[in-house]
């Protein structure tokens, strides 16, 4: 994917960098990514689509609307491919999406909405949903294999509290995992149902951020898992991702954004802001995620 700096994107559109920033504020388009130094980085596809639309547009709004439509064609193609159970075409649609966007945005703007649309059309217990969800999980796994090796001294532990691979939150969890891996972090996903031997794993992995993702596992199970994690890795803050009905004992427990992209950004902020380092075998404090009634009995 080709990217442009602000000055380059402004030159393509024949406007000033200030104009480009003004459009971002008013219209939310073009939507740049940020480099590690917080500089804007525009995707060439978005800028080119806007340039073409501006030539035939009557207003910036209508041109942006047209540019967005041309970009959303990828979603339609992917939905069509998944509807007709054509895996090669689905892969092709994602390749086309990647030509215009980053992996993160392709996943958030094309893959996840398309698969979700299949679920909404046919039901989340239907065979087309299962087909689409399995393909999407496979695609995310393949993308992860192409990710660069870990570069940051950062480790994220994700407690998988989803039901199974066909859980609607499972794909978002896989997407979050992919984004973290691509940003150079080590990521370990463990089911919250398994606590046996967890201490040994965590002593080797030494996570700095712990995320509980998914809403299916019961609170008791998650609390037991979180207790074990804290026993092994120290008093880490547990963050929640797509866990709406958690009985949170501590208001400080942080809830991540619903979208995996935004959640990933929040996780990176936690690293940049100095997440508490793991201290293996540190004395563990009060288990934070034990339901209130159990704590009262203790």
């Amino acid at each position, binding site marked *: 994917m080709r990217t442009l700096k602000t000055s380059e994107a402004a030159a393509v559109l024949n*406007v*000033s960098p200030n104009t480009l920033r003004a459009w971002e504020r*008013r219209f939310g388009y073009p939507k740049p990514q940020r480099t590690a130094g917080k500089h804007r980085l525009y995707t060439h596809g978005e800028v080119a689509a806007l340039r073409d639309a*501006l030539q035939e*547009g*009557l207003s*910036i709004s209508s*041109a942006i609307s047209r540019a967005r439509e041309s970009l959303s064609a990828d979603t339609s193609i992917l939905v069509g491919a998944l509807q007709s159970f054509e895996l090669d075409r689905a892969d092709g649609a994602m390749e086309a999406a990647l030509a215009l966007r980053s992996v993160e945005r392709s996943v958030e703007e094309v893959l996840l909405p398309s698969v979700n649309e299949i679920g909404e059309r046919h039901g989340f217990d239907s065979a087309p949903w299962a087909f689409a969800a399995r393909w999407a999980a496979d695609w995310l796994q393949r993308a992860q294999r192409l990710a660069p090796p870990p570069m940051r001294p950062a480790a994220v532990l994700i407690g998988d509290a989803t039901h199974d691979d066909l859980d609607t939150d499972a794909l978002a969890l896989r997407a979050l995992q992919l984004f973290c891996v691509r940003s150079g972090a080590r990521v370990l996903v463990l089911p919250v149902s398994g606590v046996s031997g967890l201490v040994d794993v965590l002593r080797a992995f030494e996570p700095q951020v712990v995320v509980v993702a998914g809403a299916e596992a019961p609170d008791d199970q998650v609390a037991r898992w979180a207790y074990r994690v804290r026993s092994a890795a120290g008093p880490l803050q547990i963050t929640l991702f797509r866990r709406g009905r958690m009985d949170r004992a501590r208001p400080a427990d942080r809830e991540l954004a619903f979208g995996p992209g935004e959640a990933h950004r929040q996780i990176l902020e936690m690293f940049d802001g100095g997440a508490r380092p793991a201290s293996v075998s540190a004395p563990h404090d009060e288990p934070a995620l034990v339901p209130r009634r159990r704590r009262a009995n203790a």
Partner: protein
Amino acid sequence: MSPRPQLVALPGYADRQADVQFCGHCGRAAAVDIAQPASRVCGRCELGLLIGAPPQLAPAPSDPFLLVDSTLSVCGVSALAEDLLGLKETEAVNRHVNELLVPADAEASGPGDLVNLLMHAARGEGEVHEVVVRPTSEFGIRYWARIGPCGPPRAALVVLGDGRIR
């Protein structure tokens, strides 16, 4: 001996005045000293594209106006029209013009008049006309609107003015 061929100017073209360029957002005339003369983007507000219209139709900076294409979809709403109609341009774009404005003239033959005028204007045809419109679903409010062709690209310009064709 055959008469010498001559070029004859078609009526209405020879005496046609040059279009006035104005910004589709702030409504102000195009600045001649804008930083990027090749760009269609307004050098003053940076939020609109420059559009051309006949002098008798082009809006004054204090006139709210809308741009409508040949499918009668709203393509642009000036900043003043946003305030007047109570909606943002981003919400109005791609909506049918009748969702925003309908004829309010009791003597008009019907809503088709407004539609016909807009369609003719959006095709680049017709003179500047004046109609009375009101916001859809609102009564007791009327605007005198000038409707005529503008562009490029071709579209109809609806200037909500004071009722006097200049």
